[in-house]
Every structure is written in C-alpha cells, then in structure tokens.
C-alpha cells in the first residue's frame, strides 16, 4: 500500500498529465497537412480552451492552494489587475506586467503574512 501511494503521483503525471496532453500534439502532427487554421470548429475549440485556462487562473487566485491563502482576496485580485494594467500600459510588456503584479503580491504577503 505504501509503495502504491508513493508511486501514485508519478502514475498520475503519466496517465492524467502526459497522455491527455501528448495526444493533441500527436493528432496535430497527423492532421497538420489538411489543417485549416480559420475553420469554425477550430475557432470554437480555441475559445473553449482559452476560457478553460482563464478559469484555471481565476480559480488559483480566488481559491488558492497552499500559503497564498494567507494574503487577503482583495490583494490577490488587486495584484492580478495591477499586473495586467501595467502590461497593457507598458506597450504589452509581459515581463513588466509580471514584475509589477509580483511586487504587489509580495508587498501584500509581507504586510499581511
């Protein structure tokens, strides 16, 4: 039982992480020849994928795992919003947006933590 429990995270990585991700990459290789990037079905699928990833972001901010919970919700949301606004304001600089958002959350964690 202890052996199984120790092995479980590795199995989870392969079965629930690697396989369901790699299958899309592999399918894309097979279908790439007749792939039309502007087909409506693919735009729909891209929309679903993007909304799902946005949900992952929202979930990590609103219901955070681990120690992030120690920072108040308003600060977590504020840090994301501030980082995003700086990203937009700084000519869409990913790095500046992330650095600013990080500065806010670290300051918040230092103050409230």
């Amino acid at each position: 039982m202890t052996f199984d429990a120790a092995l479980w995270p590795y199995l989870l990585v392969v079965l629930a992480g690697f396989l369901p991700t790699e299958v899309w990459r592999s399918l894309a290789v097979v279908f790439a020849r007749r792939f039309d990037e502007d087909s409506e079905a693919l735009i729909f699928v891209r929309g679903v994928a993007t909304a799902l990833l946005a949900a992952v972001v929202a979930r990590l901010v609103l219901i955070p795992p681990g120690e992030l919970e120690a920072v108040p919700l308003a600060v977590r949301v504020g840090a994301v919003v501030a980082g995003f606004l700086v990203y937009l304001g700084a000519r869409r600089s990913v790095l500046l947006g992330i650095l600013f958002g990080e500065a806010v959350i670290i300051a918040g964690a230092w103050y409230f933590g």
Partner: protein
Amino acid sequence: MPVSESSPDPQANAEPPVHALGWFWRGVIAGTTSVQGLVLFASMVGFGGLCRDIGFPLGAAMLSTLLVWALPAQVLVVGGYAAGSAAAVIALAVGLSSIRMFPMTAAIMPYLRGRSTSIAAQFLAAHFVAVTAWIEGMRRLPGMAAETRLPFFFGLGTLLIFSATLATLIGFFLAGTLPRSLAIGLLFLTPLSFLIQLAHNARDLVDRLALAFGLVLAPLFAEFGGRLDLLWTGLVGGAAAWVVHRFMKKRKEKGGA
C-alpha cells in the same frame, strides 16, 4: 503545400551552409536570451514551489515538466492530486485544457516538416510545443531557411524544457528556505504569468472574449458547478465567445457586401 510556400527566403542561398549541429546550438542560444523563456523559468520556479506546498513529490514534479510540458496541465494534475480528485476527472480536465496544443502544433508543423523529415522527428518536435517554445518558434522560424528550422527548434525546445525542469527543482527547494512573502510571490507567478501570457497570445475577438468570459464565469461555476466546474466554465465561456464571434462575422459579411 505550405512548406514550399514559406521557403522562398532571399538569404537561404546567400548564407554559407551550416551543419545541423550549428543550428541546434543557435536554437539553444536563442532560448537563453528569450524574455518568454525567462518568464517560463520563473513560472516553473513557482510551479516547483506549488508542488512543495501541496506535498507533491519532487521527482514527479520534474517528470511532469519533462513529459507534460504544459504549465496549466501540470497545475491541474498537482491541484487535482491535492484535492483528491479521481484520475479520470483530472485526465479529462487536462485533455480539455491541452486541446490548445492541437492548433498550436498544427500551426507550427508546416515550418518544421521538410520533405525528408521522419515521423519520429515530427512527433519529437511536436512534444516541444508549449506556449513559450511556440511563441519563439512562430516569431523566428518563418524567416529562416527551411533546412535550418528543425535543428534550430530542437535546440530551442531542448534548452527550454531542461531549464524549466531545473527551475522546477530550484523552486521546490527555494519554497522551503525563502522568506515567506517571496515564497508566496512564487506561488502567485503561475496565475499571474498565465493571465498575461494568455492576453498576450490572444489574436482575435474570440480569444479576448473567451478569456473575459472564463474569468467571470469561473467563480460562478466554482460555487455551483461541482467537480467539473473548470470544464463547464470552458464550454460555456468558449461557446459564448464563439457565438458572439459568429454574430459579428455575419454582420460584417452583410454590411461589407
């Protein structure tokens, strides 16, 4: 064929031939100087910290960076492990979140696939496709001579994937020793960098709407959607974005005609 369309490159014949290993190393160097690569490194440090925080073993965390090579999918696996979700539920969520690998891979393969490229080399190249390698690849590959692209992309992907695995290791150990506020900052890198990179990658109205709908719907479905809340958010948010996109397109076609 898209391959022959993209190959007319005025410099292709002018440049002296450099063997494949030379282009592999150029790809490695391109990876070390990439801003997206730096963000990925820091995000993976954050992921390593998240794993430590959740109680996910280091070996499995590093394996997930090497094999899964998609940060949101990795976060879903680790988050699902922490929540005690069934493996099938996690696999379904990962499968849906990784659907984006399909269009990304399909879009970049025409640049990487030469006439004599083996299918094994194509599958290996496809494995390197993730947000960071894709952004750098799509930016640099089209301007390069056809035969230099695959070794260059292998170099870029190898550098990114191994530095990210190293970052996972570093993050795992830093999470225990850093001041608490910095450790929390690392945990926060994943959602923060993800949101900004998603916005940065958004090409059309569909992407922006889906991003906005996903952010707004997620708390609702987290409250009422049960264990499949992420999937519901994706399906409803994505469908709504697509419907608006169809409506705008139809109106444009009517007005533009």
